[in-house]
């Protein structure tokens, strides 16, 4: 779980029976949406095209006006303040970024600070700080948006939104226009940033996998702007509230759950780690104790060499007669889904799990994974947890 940073300025956000109705439309675009986002958490709004997720997000900063209901930011209604004032306190990141091409990167980042009347020195310091935070070199500040790549521009968009340390951030498919490889990188970096800054974030996406990775809580909206389910990712995957949610999440939701876990998180089977020359009686005793009927030959450092054959255990001492190699070898830190993929692509039932030093730490099998999937989870893991370890 992420730490609660002391310097967090985040505020909670609440949607209260929020409805958006466009004139002349028979159905509302957003229908009585109610949900609470605790301070410092990422709430992902996800759903098919036309479900109202972006409309809902844009009501928080009044880019769309609320027809009925209210949105409370830190307890205060967003309707209390003038729109321009409200928006200066909310970070806003959109898919196509919208950097001003005629301003340098520094000037772009300083958009809101300048509006708020900060002095030059303070602005310059903040720009430097933010560039460092998003991982861009300091000389970027004097360049123009057209000189940056798409990924770099997206990061500047995030920096710009963070400039005045807003309590809430709105992000509308911010990584949608980036290629898949860089998208994953940006997502991971953003989660690391969030672990440090702990902002309250409303994040819109149409991609359920991104939602599961990024969200502390996920709100699935269906057509007509109705809330279908609002829950943390693991709960969503395990207990979908309706047929719609089930379909939207996908029939591979069990696999999706595995994407949120590491091998170390689940109860692995114990295997007997046996060195060459061990007395056979000792070896057999260990085998009794283990969950796997075969012994694993290990070297002096405990590294697995192969599964022992019955012949190896016939004499006085254990020989190095191996029936099959130790493949696949999976690490404790591997994401469980990837480990399963390795297991499936080999022909063995058992995968050897090793720790950072390479010594045997346990055994993974399909049954182990099934057992995990059926047990109720002790804690609700999120994509952020995966990143921060």
């Amino acid at each position, binding site marked *: 779980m992420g730490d609660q940073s002391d310097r967090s300025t985040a505020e909670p956000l609440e949607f209260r029976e929020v409805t958006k109705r466009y004139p002349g439309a028979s159905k509302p675009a957003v229908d009585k949406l109610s949900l609470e986002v605790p301070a410092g958490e990422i709430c992902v709004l996800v759903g098919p*095209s036309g479900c109202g997720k972006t409309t809902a997000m844009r009501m928080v900063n009044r880019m769309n006006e609320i027809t009925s209901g209210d949105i409370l930011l830190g307890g205060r209604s967003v309707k209390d303040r003038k729109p321009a004032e409200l928006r200066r306190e909310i970070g806003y990141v959109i*898919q196509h970024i919208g950097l001003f091409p005629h301003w340098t990167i520094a000037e772009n980042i300083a958009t809101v600070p300048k509006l708020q009347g900060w002095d030059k020195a303070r602005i310059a310091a903040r720009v430097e700080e933010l560039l460092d935070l998003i991982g861009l070199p300091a000389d970027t500040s004097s360049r123009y948006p057209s000189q940056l790549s798409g990924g770099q521009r997206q990061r500047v968009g995030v920096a710009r939104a963070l400039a005045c340390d807003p309590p809430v951030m709105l992000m509308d498919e911010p990584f949608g226009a980036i290629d898949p490889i860089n998208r994953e990188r940006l997502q991971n970096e953003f989660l690391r940033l969030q672990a440090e800054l702990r902002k309250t974030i409303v994040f819109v996406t149409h991609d359920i996998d991104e939602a599961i990775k990024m969200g502390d809580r996920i709100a699935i909206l269906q057509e007509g702007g109705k809330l279908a389910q609002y829950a943390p990712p693991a709960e969503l995957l395990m207990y979908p509230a309706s047929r719609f949610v089930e379909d939207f999440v996908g029939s591979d939701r069990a696999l999706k759950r595995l994407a949120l876990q590491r091998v170390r998180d689940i109860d692995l089977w114990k295997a007997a780690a046996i060195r060459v020359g061990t007395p056979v009686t000792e070896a057999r005793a260990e085998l009794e104790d283990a969950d796997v009927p075969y012994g694993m030959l290990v070297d002096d450092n405990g590294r697995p060499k192969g599964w022992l054959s019955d012949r190896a255990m016939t004499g006085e001492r254990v020989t190095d007669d191996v029936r099959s190699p130790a493949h696949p070898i999976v690490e404790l830190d591997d994401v469980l889904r990837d480990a399963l993929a390795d297991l499936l692509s080999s022909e063995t039932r058992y995968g050897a799990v090793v720790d950072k030093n390479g010594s045997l730490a346990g055994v993974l099998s399909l049954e182990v994974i099934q057992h995990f999937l059926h047990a109720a989870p002790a804690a609700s893991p999120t994509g952020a947890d995966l990143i921060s370890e």
Partner: protein
Amino acid sequence: MIAPGLAFLGDFGEAIKFIFQERESVSGGVQIGGIPELAGFTATHMYVSLAALAIAAVLAIPLALWLGHLGRGDFIATATSNVGRAVPSLALLAFFISFVGLGYTNVIAVLVLLAIPPLITNTYVGVRQVDRDTVDAARGQGLTGMEIVRKIELPLALPSIFAGMRTSAVNVVATATIAPLANVQTLGEPIITPQTYGFVGQLGASILVAVITLLVDFLFARLQRAVTPEGVKLARPAKARRRFSFPTKRSPKQA
């Protein structure tokens, strides 16, 4: 009955009377004004204008079509439009008068030169704006270059071409007004001979010139609208360029 009403308009009234009624010239001795004489001027005016426009179209449009098809004419298109704008029509006419002489051929040559730049620029731009994917698909289906120009690029570029013709037509008709300087008697004749026609004549001719030019402009605008294919009218490219993925107040159906 009409006369008092026109008299109320002062000079303009007199000018309109000049158009319809013959009267004696300022210097005396000659009959001027009235429909027959002015119709003659108008006929000359339209003749040189149409001839010049036709010649310019035949010269400029095929060339610009081909350049646009090849994509090679960027420099030529911008250069001709810049030069075409920079050269004053009066200077060009005077140049021809002094170097070549007076007469119809001269005038038409000058008008052709003035008509060419907008035609080249607009035709070229019109062809370049045809969606490259469309052309690509056509080529992939086996159409030759000429066929692509004829069946795809030309029809789709027609609105732009007609916009160019509209600009050229207006320029040509306007410039034909000063043709009398080269002894070609268009509607500008009363304008440059005030000693015969007087201010009233000048004004009357000006009114006619203005009306005719506006008619030509209107006519070509209509033609341009007529040749715009339905599908293109509906697409409204300027707006399409600005559309992006999430909704504005005008598109309530999207998320």
